[in-house]
């Protein structure tokens, strides 16, 4: 039976603003399926975003939503979580919003291990503002501000999150659509800061400048580079050259969660009076 997405969509908001072939719609569908699997109540779920193409997502989802300042999704979401620790807080955003402008907020949310889920749609570029290069743009790729090729090496969001202290890190792609909802559902269930990076395509500002003839070519590239973690264990370093691992990359359930630790601080402070 066809899945009923309308249940979690604000009525009258479709068609959405994303370009033809943009993977953000696929990720939004994955998020809706994950919310449905976990049976999340609309009034107990907050979707928070910053600014950017991907950050338009909360506008379409029918639950508590917050569309905030550029890169500050993690800061606002921390506020929501601290005020109402029983809420399921989900952050959405792009690679520029999350790792450049909001890079500082992102690493500190990871460090605190606060129980939230951050879905980063990595399309390798700042799409909304005209295709400037982001920290995730691969070396040599062209963007509107690097017309002769990007000299910077890119960020590996998953490794950055693990290094900063996130306790659940997963990666999927917009091509592997049926994996997205499973990764997001597992991330929401995890007690601690979870990061799900979804490799995405931006046909309008990235594909056009980097000689991708069509959306299909970009999708096929995602299919080629993605290697599941289990399959990668049997592969040599040479075979893994240029590939990207997908699936659950890191999980640690021993690190204390921030809101629980903070409740102890409140307890100590009240007892001291």
């Amino acid at each position: 039976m066809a899945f009923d997405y309308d249940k979690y969509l604000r009525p009258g908001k479709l068609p959405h603003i994303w370009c033809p072939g943009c993977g953000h719609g696929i990720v939004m569908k994955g998020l809706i399926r994950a919310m449905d699997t976990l049976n999340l109540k609309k009034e107990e779920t907050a979707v928070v975003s910053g600014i950017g193409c991907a950050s338009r997502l909360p506008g379409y989802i029918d639950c508590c939503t917050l569309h905030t300042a550029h890169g500050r999704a993690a800061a606002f979401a921390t506020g929501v979580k601290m005020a109402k620790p029983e809420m399921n807080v989900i952050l959405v955003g792009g690679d520029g919003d999350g790792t450049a402008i909001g890079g500082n907020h992102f690493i500190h949310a990871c460090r605190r291990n606060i129980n939230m889920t951050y879905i980063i749609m990595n399309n390798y570029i700042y799409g909304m503002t005209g295709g400037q290069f982001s920290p995730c743009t691969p070396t040599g790729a062209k963007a509107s501000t690097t017309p002769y090729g990007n000299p910077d090496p890119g960020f590996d969001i998953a490794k950055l999150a693990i290094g900063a202290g996130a306790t659940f890190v997963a990666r999927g792609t917009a091509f592997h659509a049926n994996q997205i909802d499973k990764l997001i559902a597992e991330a929401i269930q995890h007690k601690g800061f979870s990061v799900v990076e979804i490799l995405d395509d931006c046909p309008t500002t990235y594909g056009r400048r980097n000689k991708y003839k069509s959306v299909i070519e970009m999708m096929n590239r995602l299919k080629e580079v993605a290697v599941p973690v289990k399959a990668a264990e049997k592969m040599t370093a040479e075979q893994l050259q240029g590939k990207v691992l997908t699936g659950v990359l890191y999980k640690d359930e021993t690190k204390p969660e921030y809101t629980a630790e903070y409740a102890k601080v409140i307890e100590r402070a009240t007892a001291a009076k």
Partner: protein
Amino acid sequence: MEKKLPKIEIIEKYCKGCHICVEFCPKDVLEMKGFYASVKNLEACIKCMQCELRCPDFAIKVITE
């Protein structure tokens, strides 16, 4: 036994003509008719739901019983 065919509903108001459903259908059921996707060969459909899953625009529904 007669094979039960699904109903493939394409919402033209939402379709942005990105070709994803047409290209990734394993059985070549869909085609582009002008700007929008449309059903070419419903008989071949195996209800794998790949088109519905991948459509970024919420424009395809594969209705099975």
